[in-house]
Structures are given as structure tokens and as C-alpha cells.
């Protein structure tokens, strides 16, 4: 669910006005099949470990880690890191080492209730070994000293920004969780808008986290998404709402909703795994997002539904944020404004899971 951000980051990197694309809310992915990129088709089963690595032929790809951590004093914080890969189809036969065939973009944030708002930073580079790149065959994406990589039996994420930094280890509790039909995740009634998509829920987190000048030992639970596609977003979509929740019983819940400018859902879907059970793909009819309490950003004036009611497979669940202000305001750089933060999943007043909620397209039309 990160294409929008990828687009924004790309514009950030280039200093380009992203207004034309952003206004349609379709990010960098146009509805029409972009020429020269392989299509995403149903029936191609995910192959591990090869599919953990990059798929440089496809247009857009990302590895997205979100999670909750608790430090030695019991303080709870959220964190997020994303590495994007974008194929430009420029200079593919250029002999120059600078040929901008692949762009690598990264974005990281920390949600600390003591700060009252998100700390975030971003980077962008053309892939140029060994300065930046995304490896095939295994998970490894990096820009300078920022990296997300798999080694032996765990992932490791290293982020070092001015206001915050972290070096975290993620140990998976089980095999990857394929979303949609064996990893083919449809985004609209028209199946050409789709991605290959799997998640790694219930990652055990350990490591260090620095907020400003203080470094903490932290542990917690995280969630990794890996998704790649060529034509991702339907034309009419203005934004979406997405959750990835690690359930307390060891299960996992992923759900998303594509929204039009008027707020109607054009597509919903999800994946649910209870405890140690088998995962189930949720059909559009089994997933409904109902906005609840709204919070208005004092910076941008944008209103976000920071609490939600979720109807998932006949159950009525609720989302509550770690803190209201998890708006990501990058008007100074990209102009992209969205909400992305740590949330609790509640059923009958009892917390049944923790994870991340992402809401895009709520602001005014972006004028960057």
C-alpha cells in the first residue's frame, strides 16, 4: 500500500512538482498498463527465497516494516521503515555507472507519544553498487548506511537520521503469509490492477532505538510487507486505508480499502490468520471500514478518522491510535501529507492486537 508514498518520495528526490499525479490520487502508477513492464497476473505462485529479493523488471517494489516496541522503562513507541525500488526504463543500455535504471528510495519514522508527533526522514538515490541498491535472491535494500536485509534467520534494519536512529533485528515466527490468491493481490474490480504481495507478521523485535540524544534497548513485534507490481492503482482511487495487525493470539490481520474522492470504497480485501491456524483471504464483502472519531491536524487542517470500526468476517472490531497526531507532514519537502501510525485493535473493549494504520488522500488536493 505504499505506492503513493513512493511517488511522493520520488518527487521529493527530483524536486519536481508532483501536482498532476497527486491530484488524481493515483501516485506514480497510472491505470493504463505502462508499456515495457511485465504485467502482474494471477496464478504465479510465490517462490521463496527468490521472491524475498528484488524484482527489478517490475515497475515498483517495496519492503515495508512497521511495529511496536517497548523500551527498558516500559515506554511504548511505533516505528516504520520502507525501502522502495522503482524501475525508470531510462538508460537501460547505458554503459555509465550512473545510469538511472533503478531508483532506490527510503523512508523512516518513529512515533513517540512524548514527542507528540512523528519524527521522520527520507533518502533517495539511483541504484549504484555499493552506494545504494536492491539485491535479487534475498532481501537486501540499502542507501548508504540505511539498510534492510536478511541474514541467516532474521532481518535487520538500520536507520540513522538526525532526530532518531535505530538498529533492529526481526525474527520471523513462521513462514511468509501470502495475501490475495497465493500472493496475487487485486486492487480493483479490474484484475489488471494488482500486485504480488506477501507479509511477514509476528516478527520478534530486539535492538536499539535512539530518539534525539537518548538511546534505548527495545523489544517488540513487527510486521513486514513485500509487494511489487507494474500497474497498481485504479484510475478513480484517491486514497486508501490499510492495516497490518499482529494479533495477540499469534495470528495476523491485513485489510485495505481503496477509496474514491467522495469516500466510497471501490475495493476492499484482506487476509486473516487466527492463532496458529491457516490464513484466509477475505473477499470484498467480508471487509468494511467505518470511520469513527475524527482528529483535525493543527498544521495542515486535514481531518483524519483516527478511530475506526472494522467489520471483518462478521466480527466488529475497533482501531485506537497510540496517539492522535501521527500525521506525516512533509510539505516542506515532498508536499505529501498523510497519516501513518501505530494503532491498537480492540474487540469488545479488549485489546486483541497491535499494528499500523495508513490513511492517504484525506488532505486537500496536493499542491506541491
Amino acid at each position, binding site marked *: 500500500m505504499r505506492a503513493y508514498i513512493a511517488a511522493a518520495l520520488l518527487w521529493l528526490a527530483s524536486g519536481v512538482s508532483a501536482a498532476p*499525479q497527486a491530484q488524481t490520487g493515483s501516485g506514480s502508477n497510472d491505470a493504463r498498463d505502462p508499456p515495457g513492464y511485465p504485467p502482474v497476473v494471477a496464478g504465479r505462485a510465490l517462490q521463496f527465497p527468490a521472491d524475498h529479493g528484488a524484482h527489478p523488471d517490475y515497475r515498483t517494489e517495496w519492503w515495508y516494516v512497521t511495529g511496536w516496541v517497548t523500551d527498558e522503562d516500559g515506554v511504548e513507541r511505533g516505528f516504520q521503515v520502507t525501502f522502495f525500488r522503482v524501475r*525508470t526504463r531510462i*538508460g537501460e543500455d547505458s*554503459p*555509465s555507472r*550512473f545510469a538511472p535504471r533503478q531508483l532506490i528510495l527510503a523512508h523512516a519514522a518513529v512515533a513517540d507519544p512524548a514527542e507528540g508527533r512523528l519524527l521522520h526522514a527520507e533518502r533517495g*538515490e539511483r541504484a549504484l553498487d555499493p552506494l545504494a541498491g536492491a539485491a535479487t535472491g534475498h532481501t537486501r535494500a540499502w542507501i548508504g548506511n540505511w539498510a534492510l536485509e536478511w541474514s541467516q534467520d532474521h532481518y535487520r534494519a538500520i536507520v540513522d537520521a538526525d532526530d532518531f536512529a535505530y538498529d533492529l533485528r526481526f525474527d520471523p515466527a513462521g513462514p511468509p503469509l501470502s495475501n490475495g490468491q497465493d500472493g496475487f493481490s487485486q486492487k480493483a474490480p479490474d484484475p489488471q490492477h494488482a500486485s504480488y504481495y506477501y507479509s511477514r507478521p509476528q516478527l520478534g523485535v530486539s535492538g536499539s532505538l535512539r530518539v534525539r540524544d537518548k538511546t534505548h534497548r527495545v523489544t517488540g513485534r513487527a510486521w513486514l510487507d513485500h509487494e511489487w507490481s507494474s500497474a497498481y492503482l485504479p484510475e478513480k482511487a484517491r486514497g486508501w486505508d490499510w492495516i497490518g495487525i499482529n494479533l495477540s493470539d499469534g495470528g495476523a490481520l491485513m485489510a485495505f480499502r481503496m477509496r474514491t474522492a467522495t469516500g466510497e470504497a471501490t475495493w476492499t480485501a484482506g487476509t486473516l490468520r487466527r492463532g496458529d491456524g491457516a490464513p484466509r483471504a477475505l473477499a470484498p464483502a467480508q471487509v468494511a471500514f467505518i470511520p469513527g472519531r475524527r482528529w483535525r491536524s493543527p498544521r495542515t487542517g486535514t481531518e483524519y478518522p483516527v478511530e475506526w470500526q472494522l467489520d471483518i468476517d462478521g466480527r466488529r472490531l475497533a482501531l485506537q491510535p497510540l496517539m492522535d497526531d501521527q500525521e506525516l507532514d512533509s510539505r516542506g519537502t515532498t508536499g505529501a501529507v498523510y497519516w501513518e501510525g501505530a494503532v491498537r485493535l480492540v474487540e469488545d473493549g479488549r485489546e486483541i492486537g497491535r499494528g499500523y494504520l495508513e490513511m492517504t488522500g484525506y488532505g486537500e488536493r496536493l499542491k506541491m
Partner: protein
Amino acid sequence: MNAGLRHVFLASLARRRLATALSLLAIALGVALGLAVQLIHGAALDEFGRGMRLVAGEADLQVMGPRTGFDDALYVVLAQRPEVADASPILEVEASLPQRDDILRVFGVDALRVRRVQPALMPVPEGEAGGEFGIFAADAVFLSPAAQAALALGEDTDVGTGGTLAVLAGPREEHLRILGSVPGAGRGQRLAVMDIAAAQQLFDQVGRITRIDLRLAQGVDRDAAIERLRPLLPAGVELLAPEAAASQVAGLSRAYRVNLTMLAAIALLTGGFLVFSTQLLSVVRRRQELAFLRALGLDRRTLLRGLLAEGAVLGLVGGLVGVALGYVLSGLAFSIVGADLGAGYFEGVEPGLRFEPLATAAYLVLGVAAGVGGAWLPAREASRVAPARALRAGDDVEVWRARPRWSAALASLGLALLLCLLPPLGGVPVFGYAAIALILVGSVLVLPAVVRLAMRCVGGVGSVGGGRSVLLRLAHARLAAAPGQVLVAGAGVVASVALAAAMAIMVSSFRTSVDDWLSDVLPADLYLRASSSGTSAFLTPEVIAGVAATPGVSSVQPVRYDTLRLDEAQFPVTLIARPVAEGAAVPLVEGDAESVRGADGLPPAWVSEAMADLFRVAVGDTLSLPLGGAPHRFRVAGVWRDYARQHGAVLVELADYRALTNDSRSNNVAIRVAPGVQAEAVAAALQAQFDGRNFELAAPGDIRSKTLAVFDRTFLVTYLMEAVAILIGLFGVSTSFAALATARRKEFGMLRHLGLTRRDIGRLLALEGALGAAVGVAVGLAAGGAVALVLVEVVNRQSFHWSMDIRVPLAALAAFAVALVLLAAVAARLSGYQAMRQAAVLAVREDF
């Protein structure tokens, strides 16, 4: 000063309107020229420095190499170093544009990195023509506002967004899409930005970059970083602070700027002389009036102050007019000749005129100083004289009894000689200029003695003549008795004639030397160039082979240019690789062109005079040149004369260059035509063979005339300043004779009574003017010869590091001298006209 005194002193200025106006004009011109030079170069340097800073952005250090760049693997190495927070690679190409003479600086950048290090170079797409990856597109280019404006002047270039721009890349012409602008570059910088990979491929520079700008990690000291990073750099690549690059350029043009400023200062000095002569005359004429004031109780100090105030007012008003004129001149210069006054130091910048309070105030003060300085001696003289004596009629002759000051004159000339032996200070020949000033002072000091000597000669001639020579005898008697009169009229003439003669000799020597030098360096029959300028165009070996195979061509000598960084403190030197052994000419001043390797096996290199001076190398020394990223030792086989590159140049054998660098490209090729074949026929054949390629074919005659045109343009400003100095000198003659004539009304009346006609008196005045001017011109010419020697041997040698053969333009100088004497005669005659109109009786009556 009270109102009455103000009336006494300042009103005197208003009474002698012509003299006042000419003094004002002289000071105004001096101030205007000086200020204009200052403004123009200040603005150009500022804009140039701004360009440097702009390109450097927030970089702490810059890695710079030769013009053809260095291996881009260095970027990957440096970007990973812990000392480096951000590294931004740049491939800078001076792109030649088809059918245009100017170049466009094209920066190949990594847009994702340039944003963090040099934000001003950030390309910004306009419109949607480029799509979302427009800034990376291989055929996309982004133009700074100044580049858009400059290129729009071309007829068929559509510089709007979505238009195309044609550039020369090697032998090809490539069309780039203009997808947006570089708004951060500001108004004065003419540049283009494109993706670094695209630029590498377009200009056949894959694997090469010309610069890396570094931002250091927090807490890393710049010197420490230099120390740790320097060992990683290949030979010929330097790690520089961004200020260093700007100061290298400023240093390069400093000598030229000082040169022009000195010329302006001499114009101002001449203005001061003029104030001196008019004030002296005015004081003489008012001798009785001033003595009367003293007798009435005016004290000496007030008198001195009053007379100085006259000079100060002249200086202030002249200065104000000069300031206004200076700004007008600068504005005109910017729009007509360009910011470097045609000398070619500041390519690619378009500075604007700005108000400079400091420079303006400084020149205003200089104007006042010239006025006060000029008024000082006459004022002192007037205040010292005893009122009782001055009240007596006919006392003014006392003033004109100038004594020769041999010791002072010899001392200043001797000191001038000593100063010529001293080295320059900071690249500026300070002592050479001081010597010139001393020569001028000395020549004014010897003037009384020369006048005496001349009068003795004239006396001899006069006594032989008889009859009509009564006028000559009268003139002789007058000048011999009052040499001070010649001194006053002549001082301004001496200074301006000396300056004009010196410049004439210097420029003539320079031009003749350049002309000879051009014959030496252009021995072939035809020259084929990849393009008139820039680095983006070159000739491939195939093209050279094609030229050699053209019927009628007997031999070809390709030339390759590059720049080498030998020293971080110096501007890079030019490397020239030519087949010397095959007879490529070297205009040697020392050593020989034998290109055999010595016993030590080192290949030969020939350095230009500038390089020999700047890097202190001599024939026989070993010289280490960074070629192909590694240092190589050469033996200095000779020193040659090079008027083209003031920062230094080194010539090596083309074969040696190619063996060391594997670079087989050339920038141009000298073509010799077989005996009996017309060069035009070969030129036509070559034209046909390379039709449609942007090669330029030139005969040596064209190159020579173009070069000399550039030379003349460079000296245009010099000529202008010279003309102004002479004009001011003539003002001096005219005003002093006008004042003298007024003062001598009674003498003329007496002569009329003795039977001289009005015409005779006119002739007498003309004769006196001619004699006075002749002495001034003679001394001026002698001083000018000395100043020219200093200019050629000291000032030019130290400023620009080139030698030249002295050529005295005898005919021109003689014509100039005669014209000046005649003009002085006419000026004296005209200025005396007023005095002669008075009736003889009235004039004589004044005495009683």
C-alpha cells in the same frame, strides 16, 4: 569661512569659468574612469565568485581534476568514506553550440545528490513533457534563466520548455529536449543541467567526471579530512576548499585589473596637475588682491584654507560628476564590451550594475584629494609671500623663477631604477608602478633645467636670425626669465605625453611580438578545428585519417589540449600535445626543440614563460606531470613564448601523451598542403568531405586576423584612457596660457606701444606655446620611453609573465609630438585672444 570670504574665494572659481570647467572635467574624467573600472570588475568578480559558490553550494571540499576529468570510480570510493556525509559527482562540459561562437557550461549532475550539496543546480521540470522521470531522461536538458535568455537570441533555437537545444558532442550534433529550468542559478549564470549518466554518454565521457563536491560528516575537521582523503586521489586530482577555486580566478585577472586601475589613477593624477596649474595661475593673477586681503587683516591660515577650499570644491564637484559618469560608463561597458572589458577573463557570467557605496565614496575622496593636492602648492606660495611685496606691481615675475632641482630629480629616477629590480607583491608589480610614478615625478622635476637648456639653444638660434626673429627673441627672453611658466603649462603635458608615449611603445611592441608569435605558431596552410571553443567537440582518429587521405594534403599534425592541476594554489595549466618531432613549431625563447630523449630516458616537455615563472622551472629541470591519473616525469627541454595562456602552458610530444593516456582524440589538426597545390582547393575538398559536421576550417590568415582583433579589443580601453590623458594635458596648455595671457595684459599693452601689431602678439603667444609644449613633449617622450621600458620589462613580465621585443613606433610618435606642439600653439594663440582685444592705452594704464 564667513560669507564674505566665501565670496572672495569661491567666486573666483566662477569668474574663470573656462579654467574651472576644464579642471572639473579633468577630475571628473579621472574619477569616472577609475570608478568604472572598479565597478565593472567588481561586478564581474562578484558574479564569478557567486557562480563558484553556487556551483559549490554547501560543499566543504571540492575534488577537482583536469578539464578532461578523472575516473568516476573515485566518487564511489569517496562517497563511502566515513569523513564524507554527502558526495555529489559532477561532469562539467563546456559544450559547443552549432553555429554559435559562445559556449554553454553543461553540468551533468545526480539530481538526487545535487539537491543536498548544491541545491542551486537543481533541475526543475516545467510542464509534463518529461513525464515523472524527466530529470533522468537521456535527452533532457534544463537551462538557467540567463542561458534561456542568451540562447533565445539565436534565431532557430526554441528555448521555451518543450523546445530543443542543439549541442556538439564530439563530431556529432545532438538535439536535447528542454524540459525545464534551473531557477536556483539566478540571473547571472549561463548554464545547463542534465543527468550525469546522460551527459557522460552524450559527450563520450562514460566513466569520467570532472568534479566531486563533498559535504563532510559532522565533527570532521576540513584539514583532517584533506589529510585523510588526499592519499586516495590519483595524480593531477586535487582536494580544494571552494574558496580556493574562486580565488584562483580572481588571482588570474588581478594583474589586468590593477593595470587598468593604474591607468585611471594616472588620469586622475593628470587632473590634479591641471588643478595645480590653474590654481597657480589664478593665485598669481590675484596676487595683489590676496595681498590686499592680508593687509586688511586676513591671517595666513585663513588665506591658505580659503585657497585650499577652492581646490576642494573643484575636486568635489568634479568627483560628483565623475561618479555619475562612472556609472554611465559602466552601464555602457556592460551592454557593449562585456564585463571583462573585452579581455576574456569572465566567460559565461552576466553581471549586473549595482551601486557600490564604498568604491563610490573612495573615488569621490580621491577626486577631492586631487583638487586639494593640486591647490596645495599655489596656496602655500600665496600665503607665504609678504603682503607689502606682493602689493607692488610686477612682482609676479618672482613666481615664475623656478629653480632646477637636480638632486631631487636624480634621486627619484635612481630610486625608480632600483624599484624595477624588485619582484612583484602577490602577483601585482607594485614596485613597477611605483617606479613609473617616480619617473613621472622625476621628469617634472628636471623640467626647469631642461627649459633653461632649451632656451640657451633657442637664444643661439635667435641671435643668428635677426629681423623677424624679434618675436623669437621676445619669446626666448620671456621663457628664459620665467621658466616656471613653461613648468606650469608643461607639467600636465609631460605626464600625459609620457603616459601616451609609453602606452604607444608598449602596445606597439606587444602587437608586433604577438604578430611574430602568430606566424611562429601557425606555420601550416590550413587548420581544422572540432569547434571554435569548448571541450565537448573533438576529432576522432578516423577524422584525422580522413583529412590525411584527402588529395593534396602532404602532412597532418593533430593537437590535443587538456588542463593539468599541478598545484592547489595555482590555476590549472594548459597541456598541449603536438607532434614536435615532426616539425610542429615552438616559438622558443630558450632551449631547443630537439625532442630526443636524454640519457635519463625522460621524455621532453617545453614550458611557456608563464609556467616557467609561476612554477619556477628552468631548462634541464625534471617536471612531474599528472597524465592519465598517474604522475610522469619529463625533462624541460625549452621555454617558449605564449601570449594565449597567462596561467601557463606545457607542451609535450603527442606520441608521449598518447602512450601515457590512451587518449587518441584531438582538438584540431594543422594541415600542410603538398607543393604546387592550392590551399583553397584542399579546403574545398575537406569542406565537401566533412559536409554537415560542425568542423571549422580556417586559414592561418583568418586565425591571425581574428586573434589580432581580440588583441585590439582588449586594448581598446587602454586607448580610450590614453586619449583622455592627452586631452587633459591639452586642457592644461590651454588654461595656463589663457590665464597667463590675462596676467600679461600690461606687457602686451607695452608691446603694442612699441609697435607690435595685434597679430604679432598672437604669433608671440603661439610661439611661446609651441616652445613650452615642445620642451614638455620632449621631456614627456623621454620619460615615456623610460616608462615603456618599465611596462614591458617589469609590469608586463610580472603581471602576465610574457616577454616581448621592444618596437618604438617612431613615425607615430613623431607625428603625435608635432601635432601636440601645433595644438599647443593654437591653444595658446586662441586663449590669448581675449587679452589682446583690449586697447593698448587701457592696458598700460593699469600700472599707474
